[in-house]
């Protein structure tokens, strides 16, 4: 069943290997966490499932690493990314983290607008002010519908929205 894919490019091979490494780390975490669980009187305790899952994570993760190592030699270069691809991804992650932390302080409308603008600009939106207008309109409408009409309490800033 394990057909080798037609000439995987270098980046795919490296990413798949990295995913294998993530699985190995997860494997250790799952096993350590499961061993720590106390044994209970029940027929099957809380560690009965995590232990085999942890072992399988290790085996399959190791498999992905080995596969990546074998394929790396004959991997071709893939299509290039756009300039500043890495910083853009980091920027998006930073925007999401900032959103999570600022939401309770600055309220829904402002933080959501900021998230919209950050995402759109990073993705290549041409005009800043138009993006702000779209983002603010969307966030304000969402707030209106969910908070004021339906009654889902969204966080508010000092100015009430």
């Amino acid at each position: 069943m394990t057909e080798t894919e037609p000439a995987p490019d270098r980046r795919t091979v490296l990413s798949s290997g990295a995913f294998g490494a993530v699985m190995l780390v997860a494997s250790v975490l799952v096993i350590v966490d499961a061993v720590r669980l106390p044994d209970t009187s029940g027929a099957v305790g809380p560690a009965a499932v995590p232990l085999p899952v942890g072992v399988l994570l290790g085996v399959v993760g190791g498999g992905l690493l080995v596969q990546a190592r074998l394929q790396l030699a004959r991997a071709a270069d893939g299509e290039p990314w756009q300039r500043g691809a890495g910083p853009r991804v980091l920027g998006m992650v930073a925007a999401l983290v900032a959103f999570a932390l600022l939401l309770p302080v600055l309220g829904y409308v402002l933080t959501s607008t900021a998230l919209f603008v950050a995402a759109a600009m990073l993705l290549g939106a041409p005009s800043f002010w138009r993006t702000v207008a779209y983002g603010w309109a969307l966030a304000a409408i969402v707030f209106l519908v969910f908070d004021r009409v339906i009654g889902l309490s969204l966080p508010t800033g000092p100015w009430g929205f």
Partner: protein
Amino acid sequence: MDSFGLLMDGFAAAVTPEHLLWALIGVTIGTAVGVLPGVGPALTVALLLPITFRLDPANALIMFAGIYYGGMYGGSTTAILLNTPGESASMITTLEGNKMARAGRAAAALATAAIGSFVAATIGTVALTFLAPVVADFATSFGPPEYVALMAVAFVTVSALLGRSLLKGVASLLVGVTIGLIGIDTQTGQPRLTFGIDSLLDGVDVVIVVIALFALSEAFGHLLTGTGHTTVAPLRERAVLSRSDLRRSWPAWLRGTALGFPIGSLPAGGAEVPTFLSYATEKKLSKHPEEFGHGAIEGVAGPEAANNAAAAGVLVPLLTIGLPTSATAAVILTAFQSYGLQPGPQLFSESGPLVWTLIASLYIGNVMLLLLNLPLAKVWARLLTIPSYGLYAGVLVFATLGTFAAGGTAVDLLVLAALGLLGLLMRLGGIPVAPAVVGLILGPIAEEQLRRALTLSEGDPSILFSGGITIVLWVVVALALIGSLALPALRRRAATRDRG
């Protein structure tokens, strides 16, 4: 009076301008919240409950039924167009539906989803009307051993979803199962993999994982390739469903319904499991197996019918025995109770006319949804002409809203970001994301039921094979295993014979 006569009375009561208006409001709200990733019918009905206390009970229940069915319709729209499922039950729809959209066939995919949903929900509602007591008996005969066997069936058929590389498919499945382990163990109350973070005690919501792996990783992908100013997919065709589309869709609709309704009526069945089974079935039976993974219409038609039939199935135990088997059903039960109705064996005798009005309004809601969604298919498809930067920035706003609504803490949003990065790594490494969601949904049910079964039998595994239903299900497992080994061989033989 027989069921049919009572149903006709129900129709007579439901077809008043006032009731029809509330049904229309319900299906419209339902479609809207179904479209939004993360905001589902359960949350919406719960939020609307206090506002509707002043409504006449019939109006409120009709509106809730509309929201419920509407949510199931709406969930498929973003799955097809944006590769972002609106509900976890439409996750499977992305597999073929989004491929169809990318090939310029968005309108056809949306149409087969809408008509399939209509067919399935209508058949499901008919079954609810006339077979409810029988199905309820079947549903309550499912104890932990039966669920273990059903999960075995689901896991065996899941191989159809794993994609080209078995190793990568299994890797994804395992990661999903691992995410499913996070949180308090339901049987012993022990926290697992929470690392002392309170917000993780309740586990990671499926909605958050689906949004992160599908929508966020898609947005990240556009960041890397710099394709943010392009539109997602070109629109090519005029006709909504061609004759050949229809010929390929209708058997899938019926099979999806046949899987969805009974499994949906099971207390721990849910709407997701039948979509997995339906997709696997269609892939096995299709005359065009090579199209799967590239936009096979059966792969949209079957699962969409399955999740809508399951939505009708959920109402069977709710109405006949008062068992809420999904979050939405639990909220609808609350709604019933706040109007002084107690669903259960006595519901039909005690508040008969109202119940028949509700069932009649389900039929009406279905017709409305079809009338609303078929023309909308083309309008929705126009969404694809918005450049990606606008589309994905908007998806992000709704994704964070849905995440916040599901959990309510900053930790949930941080988990969303972390899982988005994991999704990006998977996308770059050619690792399919759908199996992870499958593992996340099936893993906890399988573990919980297995451990319940073994607790009941004091550790004796023979309980897993006790009773008629379990044996039938294990035979299905055996057949599926033999089938997946023997069918390709048979196909190869047939192919060589055709050539020779």
